[in-house]
């Protein structure tokens, strides 16, 4: 067998194992009320510290980490390292606001961020805006996972779309059957594989390449070469003077955005206790350390003999850098293990993301506008179907957008999702903003962000679209992550209009939450075998619906 055949065989075996586990997960920690959306969509809200850690890790560290970030480091150098400060500062941010979201959601039985917004502002319009944004922003993020899987398969010599389609049919199948339990259980396998892969990679590869200083100096030499397309060096080992703002704003914007993605909210809400979330901010940085070293695989790829040549021969697709590095450095069987880690590491978050987007659609669009009397079983069926549609939507992003830098898919999602920050996160603290002002701010910022992102060409390819996620800010003369610029516009519009609407005495909607709800810590009942509805404090309705709303 050739090296690739051995690696491919291992990938197929691992994939089969994961598939079996995925279907078996339906029976794991099962409750009586299996068809309730709390069950399918939040795993029964019963996950402890340890599983929450795996689940949130699975959310955060995805093909983004293993393919997109090292690809950017490989191609432009230090700028790609912004993912490290991003995944550092995200934890203080989560520490502060996530427990409040957990508490208020537990008291009122909220399953999605849009549920919270609807209850807090008494506004259907704002909840719809949050739901639609969540679904939209999730799609390019899932698309990034697809691009990651495709990169591995390309290096394995598997071309065409059919392997991708098989992978997605299976993924859709066990997501359908097992809901959130499937990715939560597979996350154990995934993380074990990934930790093994990283530890081996950061010890074994630098050893083979002659040490870290050799890798850095070699990478620096590569990056200093002149890019014929732009007439400037490809990049450097530190952030260039014009990119300092881009670096910091990409980190800050991404960190603010991460935990308002529907899938990250799902991970937070599935936690059994309030303190489990804060505890996790102390142990999740283990993943960040891993991400930092994985980012440096980009430099190892630059320094490894044969890898830059192989990437160049495949259309200079930087996403192939890490898979080629593994192919050239590892014995075939271990390359197979590493590829499996990357593929499973893309599938798990793709499942979690599609479930979260499906929850949003079901709760905040289907039940709200199409079938207000939907039974829990009907809701679960709709969510199952939508999780499939969301994955198909992601395929469109894969086909329609440039794949030069797959990280732009995630950053595009960030531009959109960050515009729900005022309604969700600021809403956790104050209800000062008027809900119509928040809708207006959101609309202006979404339009601004989308138009600017569309108008930004890829480096050296004039006339292309969605080519980068940073743009010059007029009057400021720095390049800044578009998401952050749009957020500032969003807040200014919302603040000004709030003033106007208050003067005009426009009625503010009813708020069903109380200050104490943001600190509540009702204990979860011991799992399993207790119908979920009994532990949803403050939700007397046996269907688990939020309590009666006032003033509508």
């Amino acid at each position, binding site marked *: 067998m050739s090296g690739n055949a051995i690696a491919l065989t291992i990938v197929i075996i691992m994939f089969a194992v994961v598939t079996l586990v995925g279907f078996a997960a339906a029976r794991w920690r099962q409750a009586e009320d299996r068809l309730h959306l709390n069950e399918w969509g939040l795993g029964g809200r019963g996950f402890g510290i340890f599983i929450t850690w795996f689940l949130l890790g699975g959310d955060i560290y995805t093909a983004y980490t293993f393919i997109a970030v090292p690809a950017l480091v490989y191609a432009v150098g*230090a700028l790609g*390292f912004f993912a*490290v*400060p991003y995944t*550092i*500062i995200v*934890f*203080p*941010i989560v*520490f*502060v*606001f996530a*427990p*409040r979201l957990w508490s208020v959601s537990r008291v009122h039985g909220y399953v999605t961020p849009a549920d919270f917004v609807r209850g807090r502002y008494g506004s259907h319009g704002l909840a719809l805006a949050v739901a639609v944004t969540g679904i939209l922003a999730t799609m390019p993020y899932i698309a990034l996972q697809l691009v990651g899987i495709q990169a591995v398969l390309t290096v394995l010599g598997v071309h065409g779309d059919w392997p991708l389609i098989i992978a997605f049919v299976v993924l859709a199948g066990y997501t359908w059957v097992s809901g959130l339990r499937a990715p939560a259980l597979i996350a154990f396998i995934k993380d074990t594989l990934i930790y093994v892969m990283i530890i081996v990679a950061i010890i074994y590869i630098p050893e083979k390449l002659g*040490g*870290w*200083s*050799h*890798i*850095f100096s070699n990478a620096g030499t590569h990056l200093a070469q002149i890019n014929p397309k732009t007439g400037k060096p490809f990049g450097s*080992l*530190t*952030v260039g003077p014009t990119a*300092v703002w881009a*670096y*910091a704003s990409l*980190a*800050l914007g991404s960190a603010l955005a991460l935990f308002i993605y529907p899938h990250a909210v799902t991970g937070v809400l599935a936690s059994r206790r309030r*303190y489990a979330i*804060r*505890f996790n*901010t*102390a*142990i999740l*940085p*283990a993943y*960040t*350390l891993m991400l*930092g*070293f994985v980012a*440096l695989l980009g430099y190892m790829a630059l320094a490894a003999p044969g890898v830059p040549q192989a990437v160049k021969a495949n259309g200079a697709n930087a996403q192939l850098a890490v898979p080629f590095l593994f192919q050239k450095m590892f014995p075939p069987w271990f390359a197979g293990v590493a590829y499996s880690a990357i593929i499973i590491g893309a599938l798990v978050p793709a499942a979690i993301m599609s479930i979260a987007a499906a929850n949003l659609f079901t709760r905040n669009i289907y039940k709200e506008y199409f079938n207000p009397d939907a039974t829990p079983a009907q809701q679960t069926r709709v969510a199952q179907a939508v999780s499939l549609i969301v994955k198909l939507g992601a395929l469109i992003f894969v086909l329609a957008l440039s794949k030069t830098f797959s990280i732009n898919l995630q950053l595009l999602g960030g531009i959109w999702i960050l515009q729900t920050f005022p309604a969700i996160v600021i809403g956790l603290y104050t*209800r000062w903003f008027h809900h119509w002002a928040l809708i207006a701010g959101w609309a202006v910022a979404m339009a601004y962000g989308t138009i600017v992102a569309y108008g930004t060409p890829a480096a050296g390819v004039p006339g292309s679209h969605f080519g980068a996620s940073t743009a010059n800010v007029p009057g400021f003369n720095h390049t800044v992550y578009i998401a952050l610029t749009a957020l500032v516009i969003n807040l200014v519009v919302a603040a000004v209009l709030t003033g106007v609407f208050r003067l005009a005495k426009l009625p503010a909607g009813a*708020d069903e939450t*109380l*200050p*104490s709800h*943001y*600190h*509540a*810590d*009702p204990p979860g009942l011991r799992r399993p075998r207790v119908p979920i509805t009994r532990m949803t*404090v403050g939700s007397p309705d046996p269907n688990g619906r939020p309590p009666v709303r006032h003033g509508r």
Partner: protein
Amino acid sequence: MAQHRAPRKHVGTWIVITVLLAAAVIGTLWVPFYNHLTPALGGFPFFYWYQLMWVPIVAILAAVAYLLSRLAHRGQAVNGQSADNDMRGEG
């Protein structure tokens, strides 16, 4: 929204927590502070080892902040109010 705010007994604790968490944010977002190659450590240019060093630091800061928040919480529960409808300022 009528609310009766009990006096904040743990303001000091929450200030400490805020300072701990803010340190991590500022230390990693202030790019000019670490945007150079030297001094290198173990072959890593400063830019890289400085930022990687912040990862264990943020874990420790978050752990301390977590313990402090638990202490503050316990103090509130002891003060005769059940944790479930605790109104005092946290987070």
